[in-house]
């Protein structure tokens, strides 16, 4: 009746996950009860859960990422503590638990923190920067988000029901095959990635179409803000790479469920094929994450330096070059598998070539700062911190792209330090910069600068204290994923790293404090102008938060830095004469529960598949299909905001804005 599921699935013998799971459960129930008792449920349902507004969905993506960052972060703390104390002892985590933790840490941080964070920011900002009212497929956008949330949910369910994968974040066979991993861990891993992968693909298709087909009048390709370019590149990579992940995981699942022989030791299966396929997705994935971060930094550096981006065309070229070359380097992940010297050398050099456009980007940001008037608001701090940190990560990255050096450093703590160097220093710093930068746009008030700066400095120093020792441990021959070790030389570095982790955690706490303090002081921090940073692109041309239709009129763009030019123009004319605009009715997509209902059935189906509860699989499948048919059957998917309403909403914003421009004009 319940497949493989029975009481032994609950880890009564392991207090840590049980208590953690119970605490999360209590927290969720508490929040739910509060929501229901306070009567917020209808609000949540109508304004958020069923919303197809790209801004709301973007915010929910970022929220999901932030919550999962705490989960992945606690995994990280547990790992650092374990390695600090597991010298000549078993530490406090048995291998089967430790192995789940590092697998979960990697999986969560990449798929459920970094991905939703950047996709959330792209969702929030790109339509605004393009001067349009929504993404290309608003309902699908909601489906994509909720499928991602489903994946995250399943990963967390594994904490208390059954186990998570113990095979690392990429689940290499044959270890992840049925013979060597008979438990449900790998199934949790694979199904949650399959489900969230579909969500990501949907988001990718959506954003590619949005950037290519939905731009306001005059927004030629070479007038798009840099963030739109990197969004385009990143989502092209999603569209081209995520199907590879889907196919690869499907093959792994076929091996596990139906006795196929893609990657088994027996009957001619080929494990090296898995390596190739997973990295053919995995390497572009790195750039899927970091390209949007590059875009964020471009916006931030240019805005806070009070200059247009230096070498815009170079930047576009570099972005697209990275997009293409990122598909030609995957083999550098397994130089040590014994491919010939020619193959190794070619892929090594290809990997280095990617460093060229990346280096160009760094120099262009550098020259954007040159001659600027730099305001060190929190986003700019993250940007400068990123530039310094990322160069170090780039250096070590190019180093491991040299095959003979990789023969010593492959899979070592040095490598662990390297990719944290680029992912924390690049993606996470970028995500935080974007968060600080666009938060006022999303919510209408700025974040507290004092706590923001504290968060930056703790995170920044904490990062160095944590990961520089790992470089050294790698140079001392330490490999990754060790649950315990007997080498005395590694121990002090593991200690230092654990201390760094504590500092890093203080940074995260500051970030949470910043949010709490800012929400409390939101009236004082209110952004009435819609342009708190003296911005340059179109998202700052509307109010904060923007009305549901973003722009009362599609803006007409005449050049780069569209909004900056507008402001200059307005200042020159000193407000001149402004006729009352003629507002028109606006059609907007209607809310739809499709995404949420789909995710509901996907959760049921995923859980049932993991535990081999076949009747439930069929039920979930039928439910999902029915949802689609019902969705397809709808007659009205849009509603009209009457011109009078548009005028009312826009009028308020217009007044604020005029006072801003007249103030600026009088200076």
């Amino acid at each position, binding site marked *: 009746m319940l497949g493989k*599921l029975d009481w*032994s*699935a609950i880890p009564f013998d392991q207090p840590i996950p049980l208590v953690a799971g119970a605490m999360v459960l209590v927290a969720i129930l508490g929040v739910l009860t509060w929501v229901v008792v306070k009567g917020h449920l209808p609000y949540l349902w109508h304004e958020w859960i069923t919303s197809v507004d790209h801004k709301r969905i973007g915010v929910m993506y970022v929220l999901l990422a932030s919550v999962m960052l705490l989960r992945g972060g606690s995994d990280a703390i547990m790992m650092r503590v374990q390695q600090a104390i597991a010298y000549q002892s078993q530490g406090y985590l048995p*291998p089967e638990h430790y192995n789940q933790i590092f697998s979960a840490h990697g999986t969560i941080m990449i798929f459920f923190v970094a991905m939703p964070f950047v996709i959330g920011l792209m969702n929030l900002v790109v339509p605004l920067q393009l001067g349009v009212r929504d993404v290309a497929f608003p309902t699908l956008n909601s489906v994509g988000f909720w499928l991602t949330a489903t994946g995250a949910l399943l990963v967390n369910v594994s904490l208390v*029901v059954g186990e998570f994968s*113990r095979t690392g974040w990429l689940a*290499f066979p*044959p*270890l992840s095959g049925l013979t060597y991993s*008979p*438990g*449900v*861990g790998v199934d949790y891993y694979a199904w949650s990635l399959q489900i969230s992968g579909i969500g990501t693909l949907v988001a990718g298709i959506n954003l590619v179409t949005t950037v290519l087909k939905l731009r306001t009048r005059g927004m030629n390709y070479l007038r798009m803000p840099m963030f739109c370019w990197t969004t385009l590149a990143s989502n092209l990579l999603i569209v081209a790479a995520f199907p590879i992940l889907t196919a690869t995981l499907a093959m792994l699942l076929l091996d596990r469920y139906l006795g196929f022989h893609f990657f088994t*030791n*027996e009957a001619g299966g080929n*494990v*090296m094929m898995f390596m190739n396929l997973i990295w053919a997705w995995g390497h572009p994935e790195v750039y899927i994450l970091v390209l949007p971060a590059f875009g964020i930094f471009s916006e931030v550096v240019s805005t806070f*330096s009070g*200059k247009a981006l*230096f*070498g*815009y065309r170079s930047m576009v070229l570099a972005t697209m070059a990275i997009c293409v070359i990122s598909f030609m380097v995957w083999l550098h992940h397994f130089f*040590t*598998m*014994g491919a010939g*010297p*020619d193959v190794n*050398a070619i892929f*090594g050099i290809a990997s*280095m070539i990617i*460093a*060229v456009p990346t280096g*160009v980007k760094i*120099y262009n940001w*550098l*020259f954007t700062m*040159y*001659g600027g*008037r730099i305001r*060190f608001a929190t986003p700019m701090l993250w940007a*400068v911190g990123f530039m310094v940190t990322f*160069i170090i990560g*780039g250096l070590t990255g*190019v180093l491991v*792209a*040299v*095959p*003979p*050096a990789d*023969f*010593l450093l492959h*899979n070592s703590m040095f490598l662990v330090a390297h990719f944290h160097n680029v992912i924390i220093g690049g993606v996470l710093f970028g995500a935080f910069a974007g968060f600080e930068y666009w938060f006022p746009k999303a919510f209408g008030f700025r974040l507290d600068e004092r706590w923001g700066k504290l968060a930056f400095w703790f995170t920044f120093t904490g990062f160095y204290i944590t990961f520089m020792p790992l470089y050294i441990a790698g*140079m001392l*021959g330490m*490999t990754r994923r*060790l*649950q315990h070790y*007997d*080498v005395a030389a590694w121990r002090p570095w593991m200690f230092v790293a654990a201390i760094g982790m504590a500092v890093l955690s203080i940074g995260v706490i500051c970030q949470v404090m910043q949010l709490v303090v800012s929400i409390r002081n939101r009236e004082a921090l209110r952004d009435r102008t819609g342009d708190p940073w003296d911005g340059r692109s179109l998202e700052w041309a509307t109010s904060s938060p923007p009305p549901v239709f973003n722009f009362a009129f599609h803006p007409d763009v005449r050049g780069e830095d569209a909004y900056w030019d507008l402001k200059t123009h307005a200042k020159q004319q000193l407000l001149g004469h402004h006729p009352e605009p003629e507002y028109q009715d606006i059609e907007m997509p209607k809310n739809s529960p499709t995404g949420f209902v789909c995710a509901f059935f996907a959760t049921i189906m995923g859980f049932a598949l993991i*535990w081999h509860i076949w009747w439930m699989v069929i039920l979930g499948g039928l439910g999902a299909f029915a949802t689609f048919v019902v969705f397809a059957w709808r007659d009205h998917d849009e509603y009209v905001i009457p011109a009078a309403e548009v005028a009312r909403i826009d009028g308020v914003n217009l007044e604020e804005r005029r006072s801003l421009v007249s103030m600026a004009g009088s200076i």
Partner: protein
Amino acid sequence: MNLLDPQGPVAVANSQILVDSVFIMLVIVVPTIIAILAFAFWFRASNRRAHYQPDFVYSGRVEMVVWAIPALTVILLGGVAWIGSHQLDPAAPVPGTGSPVRIQAVSLDWKWLFIYPDQRIATVNTLTVPAGAELNFQLTSSSVMNVFFIPQLGSMIYTMNGMVTRLNLRADNEGKLQGLSAHFSGDGFPDMMFDVNVISPLAFPDWVATTAKTDSVLNEDSYKKLMEQGIERGRPTYRLEDPRLFDLIATQHIPPGPGPQIASGAGRPRSGGLDAR
């Protein structure tokens, strides 16, 4: 296990390339970092002496330089990578004194088996080699993937079931080194560290003779017992019954290792073999 304290020619060359590459890159990385910090500091909004140039957004000359710097660095490093990959191919011969020693390494769940086919002996978790001689490794795995790595001797290489990888090394100085598996392979993975005893070429025949006197025999049956999941705390040695054992493993005539024997609920199997033997 310090990578910068190499004990053989391969490791020397590897770490030389590593250090060279770092220095080549530091030449541009350090000035860049300094420039970032300096520009950020000098052009701060509060600095009245800094000259605000909002129109400095394009300069062909600067563009050329910023493309050229990383490109030149990569050309230089690419050369290093190309030459290094060919000279340090794991399968390339590493000439040494005396006759080469053939060693067949098998990664088991969770121990290393070293077969000396010519000496007709085998050891577990201890690799004993003569200093100065070329070491020809053939490697495979009884079950999942592992990576064979002796940090101070250089170049690591994967072991995979049903496949043979090749690696040639040389240890120059007598002494004790340590090796490990550098690819996660399951619950007993951290216990896959092994000792490497580099002894004098004169003592090597004696060691072989002593080892050959052991009562334990390595054949298909004892190998099958050995490949069950578990950790090996001792350092057992064997007389090798059939010098073709490695081929039987590598060609899958002996089927791959059995994996965990399910000890508890189907959802959360525990590997039974983690107790030391």
